[in-house]
């Protein structure tokens, strides 16, 4: 039985746009990953609980509201507290570059904003996975 990359996609905060996350979910599935979509309006606590119960490798957080800074940092903090900081955390959505920089400094591995293609996201995840498996 082959190993499969498991990915949690979660929408933080109050926005209710689902098209972007749905497209990404399908693209990741077509790249052979198992994608858990936990729905809208997730709190950082819900995201971390779900990531642990599903034992995902990757947590993709999307935020289209301005609250991404506090939400993302809370997710990272909770993952660390639960001993689950080995997971790859990715950000996406409408995020200004200067915020993206801060998020990367916080420990978000990459931030994909509106212009990013699904291919870029898939390649990023697969590169990370290959390196981790090689260790």
């Amino acid at each position: 039985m082959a190993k499969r990359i498991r990915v949690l996609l979660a929408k933080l905060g109050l926005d209710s746009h689902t098209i972007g996350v749905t497209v990404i979910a399908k693209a990741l599935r077509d790249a052979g990953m198992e994608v858990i979509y936990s729905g809208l309006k997730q709190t950082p606590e819900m995201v971390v609980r779900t990531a642990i119960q599903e034992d995902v490798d990757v947590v993709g957080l999307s935020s289209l509201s301005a609250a991404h800074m506090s939400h993302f940092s809370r997710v990272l903090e909770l993952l660390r507290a639960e001993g689950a900081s080995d997971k790859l955390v990715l950000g996406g959505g409408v995020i200004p570059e200067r915020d993206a920089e801060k998020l990367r400094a916080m420990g978000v591995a990459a931030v994909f904003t509106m212009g990013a293609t699904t291919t870029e996201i898939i390649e990023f995840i697969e590169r990370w996975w290959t390196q981790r498996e090689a260790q």
Partner: protein
Amino acid sequence: MSERARDAAARLRAGDTAALARAIRWLEDGDALGASVLREVAGAPERAWRIGVTGPAGAGKSTLVDALITELRRRGQRVGVLAVDPSSPFSGGALLGDRLRMQRHTLDPGVFIRSMATRGRMGGLASATHGAAILVDAAGFDVVLIETVGVGQDELDVAELAHTTVVVSVPGLGDEVQALKAGLFEVADVHALNKADLPGADSAERNLRALLDLETQRREGEPRWAPPLVRTVAARGDGVPALLDACDAHRVHLAASGEGERRAATRAEQLFYALLREQAPQRLLARATDLDRTIAALRAGEIDAFAAAEAVLAGGGLPAL
């Protein structure tokens, strides 16, 4: 038994959900640690009640499971959920969306929800689901709800795994009775007619009851259990306490009639064969000598597939040319 597996089993038994989730992952990935953890916990007697929830796509299984969690929690039970969705036969990937409907239980420490992809297994469950159910039990959950993929007529593995199988149907699936009449209908210990507020619910109920009468006659001579039919509107929680009462009655029946023991024996035997089916091919191939040469000779037409397979099955390698 490696130290790591023993440690994982101990943490899991202490109710550590991260350890439980990781051990399930090992089972899914075919990591030997998973089998070790299972062997470590397998000696303990079954405690948890396993309720299977199956039915065609669109019947509302996830919503019903969500409502069952609420009712079980109200009754003070700790609940583990294994929700199975299909893997794509093309990419091997999967979209696992069942827990979307169970979001409100995410932060409840008495609830554990794990999505599983079928990873090529037919039958409505994943290969690792049986082992996962044993692990959820070992982690101290009182009830394990097992939600299958949307099933047709011959995806009935859940009936082998669950103590009580709930078959969910809905009015207006066109010919709902057609969908249920082969296989699926026979494995039902309890029927849920969900979305019972929709038009056509009464006629769907009449059809199901007519079939149930036939089914009761078919089961004549077996320990008496007439599968009850419960109308539910899962989205509102209507009928869900009655559904759970029906499952409970079935549990009492299994214990009182001896049917539970008979099924447990059958289950053990089926699990044995399932494990062999899963693991035998890899082990056989790993043991075969000269496999590369055998395949090469086969591809070159020097030997035929029957001879090559026979040689590997007999534990050898390349048959004499």
